[in-house]
């Protein structure tokens, strides 16, 4: 990680650049907020900031073509790593870009209603829409492995299935209506 930055940073306490220290403080503040409000680990934040189009990365590595900011995602991730290690990144442009991205993290102020980590595994829309998702028994990581005895746990009572009954009855209603219309037509 640190190799992505050409010059290693200096320890925070030894740094006399107030502006750089302020930027580092900002980054650390947002990191802390993300941890508290969104249950985001440092590594998760780092991987999020590292997201980069592979072809753009290849273009930069093979042909030396930079994007308009001149700062790569790897450099930003490396700077974040240095900050986490108690260092102040030496490259001011990278630090500034990192601080900008952290400050502009969307909707952090509106996270008072956040419920990090909530939601049963089976209930996730993400799980349902991810191709190749494998349905895992709800007792998944139990030592017994199976969890078959608990399969009905968490299911709603008979009344909880009303929406399902209504949806399931739709084809029957349509069928009855079609037969009814045909019968009516045959009469006339």
């Amino acid at each position, binding site marked *: 990680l640190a190799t992505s930055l050409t010059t290693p940073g200096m320890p925070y306490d030894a740094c006399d650049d107030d502006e750089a220290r302020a930027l580092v403080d900002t980054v650390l503040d947002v990191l802390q907020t993300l941890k508290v409000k969104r249950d985001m680990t440092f*590594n998760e934040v780092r991987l999020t900031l590292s997201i980069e*189009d592979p072809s753009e990365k290849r273009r930069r590595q093979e042909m030396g073509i930079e994007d308009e900011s001149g700062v790569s995602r790897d450099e930003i991730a490396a700077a974040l790593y240095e900050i986490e290690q108690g260092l102040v990144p030496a490259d001011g442009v990278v630090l500034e870009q990192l601080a900008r991205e952290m400050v502009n993290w969307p909707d952090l102020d509106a996270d008072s209603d956040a419920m990090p980590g909530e*939601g049963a*595994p089976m209930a*996730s829309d993400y799980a349902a829409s*991810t191709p190749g998702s494998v349905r895992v028994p709800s007792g998944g990581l139990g030592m017994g492995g199976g969890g078959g005895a608990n399969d009905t746990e968490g299911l709603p009572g008979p009344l909880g299935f009303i929406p399902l009954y209504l949806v399931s009855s739709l084809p029957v209603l349509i069928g009855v209506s079609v037969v009814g219309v045909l019968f009516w037509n045959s009469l006339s």
Partner: protein
Amino acid sequence: MPRSQRSDNFIDKTFTVVADILLRALPTTSREKRAFSYYREGLSAQAEGEYAEALQNYYQAMRLEVNSYDRSYILYNIGLIHASNGEHSRALEYYCQALERNPFLPQALNNLAVIYHYRGERAIESGDMPLSTLLFDKAADYWREAIRLAPTSYIEAQNWMRTTGRS
């Protein structure tokens, strides 16, 4: 028009329209809807091989999504993109992070195993037998866990483990 609505296939289109209606009707916050909408755009782009666009959408989804469990699916898909680009180390990082947030992801375990198995085969080609054994053992560990979570999946892996005495 969003990418997810551009599909030519009638069934896909119908599914997308129904999913959009459900998304609007679901009792979630606007941020959650935006995050999920970015995720779906990312999935569509990824399915069409538009990895740059997919990653942009995943980046936005990662920054918006509050639920760590849901974020694991975004991380998993980013891992898939890196794996298909041959960036295996990068893919490993994302798969591992996805598993850290959600240990119920047998597909991530399977993909980790596939990468280690591939590396094991490369090690055999370069004549490094001890390394290949190590890598195959690691692949078997991941497959064992994946099969424990999803016993009816990964039949090929189960056969491989049986034939190599690793089951």
